[in-house]
């Protein structure tokens, strides 16, 4: 349910990054979202469209790089998938606690933009 706030944070950070590079219109933003980050990619996509709508970046695509959970079972000594139907960090084989190795990412990776200069007019 907090995807809207996340989408707003992404837009704010990307706009700030683009302003540092002379300003422009966002074309594509790529983000890494982990399976264990408590975000639903479909909801994030929907929230993104709502956040950019009506603004200069309305056409900007959000590319979500989905990162599956990577959890190590110290007892079994190997990486284990998420147990089907469960989000608990427990080993599907020995039921011991799993150590998180990846899959909780919530990062902005790249931003592509077209500078206002290149479009022959400045809006900022």
């Amino acid at each position, binding site marked *: *349910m*907090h995807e*809207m*706030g*996340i989408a707003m*944070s*992404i837009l*704010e*950070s*990307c706009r700030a*990054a*683009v302003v540092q*590079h002379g300003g*422009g219109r966002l*074309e594509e933003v790529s*983000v890494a979202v982990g399976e264990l*980050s*408590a975000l639903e990619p479909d909801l994030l996509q929907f929230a993104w469209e709502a956040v950019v709508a009506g603004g200069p970046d309305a056409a900007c695509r959000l590319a979500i790089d989905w990162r599956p959970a990577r959890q190590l079972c110290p007892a079994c000594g190997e990486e284990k998938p998420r147990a089907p139907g469960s*989000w*608990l*960090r*427990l080993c599907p084989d020995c039921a011991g*606690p799993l150590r998180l190795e990846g899959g909780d990412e*919530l*990062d*902005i*990776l*790249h*931003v*592509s*933009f*077209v*500078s206002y200069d290149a479009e022959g007019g400045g809006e900022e």
Partner: protein
Amino acid sequence: MTEIDVRQRILAANEAAAAEVRSRYRDEGTLVINLISSPGSGKTTLLEKTVARLGGRLRLAAIEGDIATERDADRLRATGIPARQILTGGACHLDARQVQGALAEAAFPAHDILLIENVGNLICPTSYDLGEDLKVALLSVAEGDDKPFKYPAIFSRAQVTVITKADLLPHVTFDVAAVRQQVSVLNPQGRLLVTSARSGEGMGEWCGLLEDLLAAKRAARA
């Protein structure tokens, strides 16, 4: 078209604000608590009773997160401590910038413990660092003893889980041992307290924990 590498956490702005809150309160030697639970589990009542026990010897202040009303801040002010309400207007959690804004507007007098009551929600507040020293998860016995495994994110991150409304245990099906077992799996270092604001059970232990943590924070600063 130009591509730039941003490589930053999506919540970087929140994390920066949380770091500022944490730095301010490290300098001031104030303990900051972030209370998280579902609606109706007794966060505000726990705080009222905490003020009743500690208010005589410690200076407390409260920030209350809610969607629509000032009721909780009014209740805390009625106990005699300064309190500021943050109305999120629908958002399901507090973020660190809201806390910074509330602190700037409230301009609380110097305080020993800042009590932040998050919006009633077991899910979304978990992702947002507010600059607290301690995340506390509340679970009332009426909610059921299966909640730690159903909402593992908060119960694995909260350093303290407080079972509330223990006076209702004779009337509900709630196995404290089952909760203790789930919390120990999710969070081996986590502490579990069993409390009743009404009967006073466990309230001494809860308040003692806050005092110990405050003393430890100040000792670390010295």
